[in-house]
């Protein structure tokens, strides 16, 4: 299966922009199942990180208020083509994933 995460990193004028798209339900825990009427348990990404040259350049903390199949982008000073960045996430149920991509 395809990985449930896609990452792009692009460097321009000494600034690198990292964009990530993650397949994730992002359930807040406050939503009811339409059929059963029961609350759907919370299941959302709590942390997203990005590492560049072994150093953490970004750490995001999220609530279930980030949309389903979440997207995020950020920029950091530095980075150039062909170097690598690593993006990782973990959710409140212990799910996690990482992906290394080359900066373009």
């Amino acid at each position: 299966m395809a990985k449930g995460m896609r990452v792009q990193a692009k460097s321009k004028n000494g600034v690198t922009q990292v964009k990530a798209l993650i397949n994730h339900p992002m359930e807040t825990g406050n939503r009811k199942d339409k059929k059963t009427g029961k609350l759907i348990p919370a299941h959302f990404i709590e942390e997203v990180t990005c590492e560049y040259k072994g150093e953490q350049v970004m750490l995001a903390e999220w609530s279930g208020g980030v949309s389903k199949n979440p997207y995020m982008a950020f920029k950091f000073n530095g980075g150039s083509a062909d170097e690598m960045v690593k993006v990782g996430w973990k959710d409140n149920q212990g799910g996690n994933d990482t992906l290394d991509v080359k900066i373009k």
Partner: protein
Amino acid sequence: MKKTIALVLGFSLLASLPLTATADPEAEREAFVNHFKKKFPNIALEDYVNGVYALDAGAREQWEAIEEFPPYEIDVEEGQQLFETPFANGKSYADCFENGGIAIRQNYPYFDAKSGQVKTLEQEINECRKNNGEKPLKWKKGEIAKISSYMAYTSRDKIFDIKIPDDPRALAAYEQGKQFFYAKRGQLNFACADCHVYSPGMNLRTDILSPALGQVTHFPVYRSKWGEMGTMHRRYAGCNKQVRAKPFKAQGEEYRNLEYFHTYMSNGLPVNGPGARK
């Protein structure tokens, strides 16, 4: 027996259509396109592939923000993997389609002289599975929508070229699709055309109605409302439900004929699927 009744009904419906005898789909398509040109003189024809985003700047801005990294990208990638994974018998989807299934979306749906029916891309995806001993997929979402997304993706920029062959059955299918499109239905009594031909760009509460021209070009779609991909027939069923009509079966004759007419009206526009919609 049941079939006979359906057929008789079908014919009687047709007989009641004054246009049947003189129907000229190409003239009707031109009139359809001209209606939109007149209604929106400042919208370029090619922009209709972008649906409602051709008409509303505020909505377009959000859509462009989403297209920055569209949620369907993961689905296209999964669709490609599904498409390329061989069946148990060693064959694959590519063996079932012209040109290995690549860049062919613009030819669907088409009238199949052998079966005397309109055939859609999703239908042939499942036929391909069946012919190779695999179980068919569910019609409206999931794997079929992903495979169809990938196939649409490989066809981007190809121009829709739906043909209505010189066969009374093909013309009848087109006519039935047209009649479906213009018929009021459901408790709320709406025709497809009411919203999408006569009122595109208008607000239904805060929903902005999309123009019928070009609608088919961006399917399948990832709808934020669904939080996932869905096929054209999933959307038809949703529309029917919204007007409180009983939806027809996905890939049943009604929706296939509707898709035939609906797509024919967009002939000349490029494939732009899969799309992202609210």
